[in-house]
């Protein structure tokens, strides 16, 4: 009976594929090209969601629209007022930095994207977005929503990309407490709840419930000073060497559909040497005139919008492996 032979042959084939994919990166190119085949499947799977959005758009009364419009206008007004204040602060900040001869890479522009699918493996938290290599997405790019940092691009396909969320248990985000600058690593929790755990924080550290955690920019993967999470619980167990601190991500991980990818600036792309170059003329490079996020469908193309007071010290991250990336962040955050 040839059944057993076929079994052994196909098992061997699968195992050699596994070995090759884990050791070498020839197969990345195969995966990249085959993605043209899988993208239609995702497009089909996304139809119900798009339909519901379409229905929401079409069957809405004029009164609701007008109401929403006035509300949005008001919000825009408030936001613009705050931006004006921010512009002043940003230029003041950069002047101070210049005085100190510290580096200030100019803040990034953003590209809008939509989440079109979620990984169906409960053990990993990844999402698929509708931007790929053809839109200029690169590996390691940071993804944000309107409220905070969401994750980083893990795998770039021609028309889509997989993004590893910061709540994935394999992902570590270098953060600092906004109140006092205490640095630590926020790792995705291993449990079912999409939370973050602060690792290796000594019991004596000055962190309290409600503290805002912002990205520290260490690890050179994420832009600095984006809000990441809020501390929700702290447990001091005398039997444990470290405090157990949990935090809730500020980004709306499972509700939002519209996200932004931070485009690293040309200066930053040149190479890591530029990061320590203090000669950039930063004062003129902070034009804050508009709202950073524009979610209208017309703006779906990558739109070079400026964003306030966020400095990019991240280079576009040549390291491809997310595990290696988080390991690098570990070492970076370990310098406390």
């Amino acid at each position, binding site marked *: 009976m040839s059944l057993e032979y076929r*079994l052994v042959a196909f098992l061997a084939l699968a195992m050699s594929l596994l070995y090759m994919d884990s050791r070498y990166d020839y197969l990345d190119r195969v995966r990249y090209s085959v993605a043209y085949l899988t993208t239609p499947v995702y497009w089909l799977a996304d139809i119900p969601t798009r339909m519901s959005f379409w229905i929401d758009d079409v069957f809405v009364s004029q009164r609701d629209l007008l109401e929403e419009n006035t509300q949005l206008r008001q919000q825009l007004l408030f936001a613009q007022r705050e931006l004006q204040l921010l512009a002043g602060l940003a230029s003041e900040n950069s002047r101070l930095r210049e005085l100190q001869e510290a580096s200030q890479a100019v803040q990034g522009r953003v590209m809008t994207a939509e989440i079109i699918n979620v990984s169906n493996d409960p053990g990993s938290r990844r999402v698929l977005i509708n931007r790929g290599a053809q839109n200029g997405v690169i590996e390691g790019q940071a993804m944000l929503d309107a409220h905070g940092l969401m994750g980083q691009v893990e795998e770039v396909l021609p028309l889509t990309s997989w993004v590893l969320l910061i709540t994935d248990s394999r992902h570590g985000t270098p953060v600092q407490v906004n109140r006092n600058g205490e640095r630590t690593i926020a790792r995705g929790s291993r449990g079912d709840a999409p939370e973050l755990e602060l690792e290796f924080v000594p019991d004596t550290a000055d962190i309290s419930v409600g503290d805002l955690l912002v990205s520290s920019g260490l690890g050179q993967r994420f832009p600095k000073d984006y809000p990441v999470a809020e501390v929700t619980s702290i447990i001091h167990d005398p039997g444990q060497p470290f405090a157990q601190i949990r935090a809730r991500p500020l980004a709306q991980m499972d509700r939002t559909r519209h996200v932004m990818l931070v485009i690293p600036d040309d200066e930053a792309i040149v190479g890591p040497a530029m990061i320590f170059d203090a000669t950039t003329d930063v004062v003129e490079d902070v034009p804050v005139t508009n709202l950073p996020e524009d979610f209208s469908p017309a703006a779906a193309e990558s739109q070079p919008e400026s964003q306030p007071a966020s400095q990019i010290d991240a280079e576009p991250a040549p390291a491809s492996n997310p595990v290696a990336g988080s390991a690098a962040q570990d070492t970076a955050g370990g310098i406390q």
Partner: protein
Amino acid sequence: MIPKANAIWVILLSFLVAYLLAIVPFPEWAMHYRPQWVMLVLIYWVMALPYRVGIGSAWMAGIFTDILEGSMLGIHALTFTILAYITLSLHQRVRLFSSGQQSGIILALVGLVMTATYWIKVITGETAQEGMFFLLGALSSAFVWPWLFLLLRQLRRSFDVH
């Protein structure tokens, strides 16, 4: 005598629908309960047409799953191959079972394959180790099997796939 193969599009379409159901977004809490549609469809066709859908087809279905999910190439190819082999060696007996007994077999088979997939994923660092909740997927698979079986059998008979 092996009859002439026909209506391959019925098989392909059923797999396409299974892939769609496998990736349609679920809310977070329901993630573990998602039935393993691709495995179920594969088991059905292996049982119904063992001379047509066998280890090779299972391997292909697995590779496509890997590419679709963006997981490491070969994980699902490996486990689906094992699934097809076990199904092939059991199919003559399982065909005669009542639907309740069949569901029991499905529970064991899907549970086994999911466990194997989970182990490989943990070993290769694809996913984090977190309890055995994923086996709830095997339970829901066993639950939907009788209806899926009737549906696919109806499909196979009305298009006379053999």
